[in-house]
């Protein structure tokens, strides 16, 4: 992440340079999509949330405070939009059985895909606020300070949620820990 470059692009965008925003889209559409995907566990919903996230960012660039990092701001929008999408979901039937049997596949890439799927499912068993800290820390590799800025909670709360989320995930992902 290069904060200075982001700041420059945001400034250009606020001055009316649409191309600058296109560069921000190209830079951040992948992490935004992945954050939404981890929050929602559904590619179509993640795509919609990604679109909405950037549209809202574009519409509200005037509200963006350049003292903060742009990626903190857009990840916060993405998480909020993901939470909105979750709250508007209709109840769905529980998944019958686990798709993952815990045995490692013959191919390394298959193992990675299996692990991603298992992690995705395990995350959905966490509350959205616990899921958010796992996504920000382990998917986006953000610091406690960044997470605090995005979630608008003290660092102490970030750490507490992170510890709780990890403990809950341990039992869910035990078979994968053994093979990782």
């Amino acid at each position, binding site marked *: 992440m290069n904060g200075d470059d982001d700041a420059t692009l945001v400034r250009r965008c606020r001055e009316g340079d649409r191309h600058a925003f296109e560069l921000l889209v190209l830079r951040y559409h992948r992490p935004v999509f992945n954050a939404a995907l981890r929050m929602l566990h559904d590619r179509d919903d993640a795509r919609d949330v990604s679109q909405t996230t950037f549209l809202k960012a574009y519409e509200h660039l005037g509200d963006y405070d350049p003292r903060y990092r742009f990626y903190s701001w857009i990840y916060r929008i993405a998480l909020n939009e993901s939470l909105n999408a979750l709250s508007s979901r209709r109840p769905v039937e529980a998944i019958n059985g686990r798709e993952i049997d815990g045995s490692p596949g013959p191919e390394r890439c298959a193992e990675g895909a299996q692990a*991603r799927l298992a992690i995705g499912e395990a995350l959905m068993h966490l509350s959205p606020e616990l899921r958010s800290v796992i996504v920000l820390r382990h998917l986006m590799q953000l610091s406690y300070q960044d997470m605090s800025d995005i979630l608008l909670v003290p660092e102490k709360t970030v750490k507490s949620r992170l510890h709780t989320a990890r403990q809950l995930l341990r039992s869910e992902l035990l078979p994968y820990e053994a093979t990782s």
Partner: protein
Amino acid sequence: MSDPRLTELIHGEIDGVLDTAERAELARQLLADPAARGEREALRRLCGLLDGAGQSDPPADLPERILAALPPQRPRGGLWAPVLQPWSTAHRWRYAAVAAGVLVAGAIVFTTVRGPGALGDLAGTMADSGTHTPLDEAVLAREGVSGRVGLYRHRRALQVKLQIMAPGPVDVLVTAGGQTRRIRGLGGHAGGAATTITLPETPAAPTSVDVTVLMAGREIGRATLRASGSP
């Protein structure tokens, strides 16, 4: 493990935030407590798994979809809400040119689903020369569907320009002056192509136009465009 201080130190070590004194404190506790060492290893494996999961590839057309849904200039309104008043002169001319080109390109077929209008009144129109004045616009980004709907004035008539990108066909209901028209099969293979309809002139010109987007018969977006300006 019930010692909250030890828990904090183990998580802090994994997250790389311990200072020298804290690392030494953790080392002493681990040395004295085999259970703590087991706990630490389990958490390290878990975090290694989470860190190593990697990212999924987004849909290849995601950037294009995002950009297609952006309004021509930064608006003040919200999602799927009327935006962009007033427009710059440059935008007015650009959109006038686009709208005229699209209208010349062909006629639009649609059917009446409610209201007294005869089919002949609802047939697509061919554009003639003249200025198309943008009045209002709404953008949509929902459930894989993105696009814009613009309301224009052309001479005394109102025109609605639809530009919808969708994975499959969508229908659009346009309601103005007590009449509703249904435009079928936008998006899908024709995704991104602009469609313009001219509303029939009425003695009392409508002050607003309601636009509803349907996919598989289900409403996924609605907007009211204001024709508040005088011709």
